[in-house]
């Protein structure tokens, strides 16, 4: 099971040049809006023709600019879930699901529709029109319609973005089980970091039409290959960095020397650490790892329902006009325990959590 994508496409505001192969595991494509995520799916589905390249699904060549192969969309057998679902508003739920089954014998068609209705918990809604359904139900109908043709690849374009927040986790749960049951390559496009992480096994980060990172999602998050990818995957803390010796760097903006566990195979220009990985020590003596522990002062705190973001100044008390050096994110419980303690607190920058960036 594989989907090999090697395409180039010149567009008005940017150009797309991608090269990746998706396997059997769901691949999340993460990128800011305008990075070419949707365009990538459209090229794979055959709705847009790339200028150059090759698209191969399993052993079927869907597109090859050199051999002049361009299989039309209708013969590609690729299920595409559109961002706005693109349900046929004049057809009932059943008619929508059956749309792609017109060349199947009537009783087999009914059977296949039934199976999708059951799998996606749509029983009872057969004769409803799309406008009479909730957002979550509409999405399930669109998914059922795409799956009914038994596609060899499944492409989901921002599957959760059209839903209200309270519906998302529920729909996401359904989506995960659909993806798990799907036998074929699946691609999920999203601009939401958490969705990408939960829905994908592999992750591809797209910036300005280029692959900026590609690999197992844990790897991409743990060791983002570039500053852009680190930012796009939600990292807030960066410092210019210089190598002192093997395994030791000077983080210029944080004013500290840090031991790092990441092998230094590339030039080191920046160092980064994720806000939630900054740890406050309970004891003030620096614990067992004094070399990674620094005194800090909280300059500002901003609350979300369950977490709190703290803006920190290291080494000395902040003077007026100074900018915070680090952002840390902690659960409220921890904040409750710490908030009345006198400064400085002690913060630990774990050598495993610090990553190095070549740009």
């Amino acid at each position, binding site marked *: 099971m594989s989907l090999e994508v090697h395409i180039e496409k010149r567009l008005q505001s940017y150009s797309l040049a991608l090269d990746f192969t998706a396997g059997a595991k769901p691949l999340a494509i993460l990128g800011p809006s305008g990075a070419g995520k949707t365009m990538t799916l459209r090229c794979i*589905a*055959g*709705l847009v023709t790339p200028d150059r390249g090759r698209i191969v699904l399993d052993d079927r060549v869907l597109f090859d600019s050199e051999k002049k192969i361009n299989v*039309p*969309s*209708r*013969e*590609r*057998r*690729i*299920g*595409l879930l*559109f961002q*706005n679902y*693109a*349900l*046929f*508003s*004049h057809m*009932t739920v059943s008619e929508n699901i059956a*749309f*792609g089954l*017109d*060349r199947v014998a009537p009783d087999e068609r009914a059977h296949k529709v039934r199976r999708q209705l059951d799998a996606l918990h749509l029983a009872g*809604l*057969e*004769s*409803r*029109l799309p406008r*009479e359904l909730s957002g979550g139900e509409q999405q399930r109908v669109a998914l059922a*319609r*795409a799956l009914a*043709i038994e596609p060899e690849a499944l492409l989901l374009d921002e599957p959760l973005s059209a839903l209200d927040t309270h519906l998302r986790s529920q729909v996401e749960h359904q989506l995960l089980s659909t993806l798990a049951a799907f036998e074929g390559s699946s691609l999920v496009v999203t601009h939401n970091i958490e969705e990408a992480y939960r829905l994908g096994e592999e992750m591809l980060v797209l910036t300005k039409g280029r692959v900026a990172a590609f690999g197992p999602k844990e790897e991409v998050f743990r060791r983002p290959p570039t500053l852009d990818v680190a930012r796009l995957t939600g990292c807030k803390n960066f410092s210019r960095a210089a190598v002192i010796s093997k395994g030791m760097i000077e983080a210029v903006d944080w004013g500290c020397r840090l031991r790092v566990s990441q092998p230094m195979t590339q030039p080191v220009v920046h160092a980064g650490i994720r806000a939630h990985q900054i740890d406050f020590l309970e004891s003030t003596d620096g614990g067992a790892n004094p070399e990674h522990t620094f005194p800090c002062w909280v300059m500002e705190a901003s609350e979300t329902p369950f977490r709190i973001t703290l803006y920190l100044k290291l080494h000395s008390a902040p003077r007026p006009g100074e900018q915070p050096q680090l952002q840390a994110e902690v659960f409220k419980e921890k904040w409750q325990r710490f908030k009345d303690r006198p400064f400085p607190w002690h913060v630990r920058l774990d050598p495993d959590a610090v990553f190095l960036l070549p740009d």
Partner: protein
Amino acid sequence: MPADLSPIWISLATSLTATAITFVLGITAAAWRERRSGPLFALLDGVFLLPLVLPPTVVGFLLLLLFGRNGPVGRIFLAMGTTVVFSWPATVIAASVVSFPLMYITARAALAQVDPELINAARTLGASEWRAFHRVAMPLAAPGILAGTILSFARAFGEFGATLMLAGDIPGRTETIPLAIYFAVEANEMARAAFWSVIDVGISLALLFGLYYWSQLQSTSRARIERAG
């Protein structure tokens, strides 16, 4: 009351045939044009819409040049041993040409309203271009296309100038109700003119009411299905 009621049947046969022709041609042209853009196609739009803005006599004159014995199309018919001018088909041609722009312009507007993503969705589901068009685009554009059909029929039913130029006024063959009215007035037979005028108003109202009733029926049956669901 005139003994010869043939203008009624000629008018109905002409305008219904012309509406059927413009329905197919207008929607085909609109669907074809809808996927294209560029200055040449904008120019083509002008040609398609010309019969709407030209005086019917000019349209009739141009058709006469085209279909006359020495015209390019007329010669083809002549070679086949027939002529079009001053025959019943000429009334259909004249009515079709003048009503075509109304069908074309409304069908285009209606098709442009259909979300192109729905057509894309149909394609990814294995639908041919034809299936995507007649199962998705057409039903969604139906209200607009119905409006275009009504307008085309109304225009064809009322057609006078181009018909007179191309088909002449031959009672029993090309004399439609509008022609009958004109020649009755010219012959100072006011009662006959009034009779045909009343008939014209009656048929127009009946047809428009019928169409309205039918479209209401469609939407109420739809609503009933919705409630049942």
